[in-house]
């Protein structure tokens, strides 16, 4: 997991590999730290994620709630076909903004 900060309150989080019951506590930890640091816009790049289960979805939902409560947002970028399918079958694609590219996500959040 690596993160980049295009603006003071915006952060891009790159996650990779398997996001499951073993690895998602680390993702949660990162999101909580960002919120505590005052980050309001989180863009999570999912393009390198190969496996995502309910615990990963739960952590992303938790992150989304936290950011929205702070007047911000958490959006998603570049899920592969398999990961996109998981958002669709759970209906979570209606809850999250899912973008094809980081540029698109940042433009939407007002960070060009």
């Amino acid at each position: 997991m690596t993160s980049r900060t295009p603006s003071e309150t915006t952060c891009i989080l790159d996650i990779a590999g398997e996001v499951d019951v073993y690895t998602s506590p680390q993702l949660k930890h990162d999101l909580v730290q960002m919120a505590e640091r005052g980050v309001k816009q989180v863009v999570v790049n999912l393009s390198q994620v190969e496996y995502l289960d309910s615990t990963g979805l739960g952590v992303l939902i938790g992150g989304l709630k936290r950011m929205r409560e702070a007047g911000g947002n958490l959006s998603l970028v570049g899920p592969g076909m398999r990961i996109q399918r998981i958002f669709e079958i759970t209906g979570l694609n209606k809850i999250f903004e899912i973008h094809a590219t980081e540029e698109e996500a940042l433009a939407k959040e007002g960070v060009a």
Partner: protein
Amino acid sequence: MAESHSETNLNSETVQLIIPCRPEYVGVARLAILGIASRMPFSYDEVEDVRLAVGEACTHAVERAGSAAATIRIVSTISAHALKIEVSDDVAADAVATQSEEARLLEEAGVDHQGLGALLMEILVDDVTVETDASGTRVVLTKYAPE
């Protein structure tokens, strides 16, 4: 009834896997299931669906176990018309009170992700049964072969 781990009824098309009921072993089960589901006439997406459903069943066991010592037994049976996978744990019903830190935080955030896991299993395979008793939980997942 959740079957006891010592009862084995294996036939020539059955694979049995027993793993520690802990987060770092769920990936081992997923890899084994990938190999087993690949023996069926399933599409790539169907194989992945089975893998995710079994991952959810194991995750559910791991979260209920918390730090208690337990094991998960996964018995997969291949037949011409279906793949049946039984995921049984020996997590005692009273151990479930020991909620993991992670599960507690998620619950505080209003996310019932065990519910999400159950939803995924229902969508991903054709039949799901869950039985719980004092000695543990047994989830049976069935995915039918294409006609």
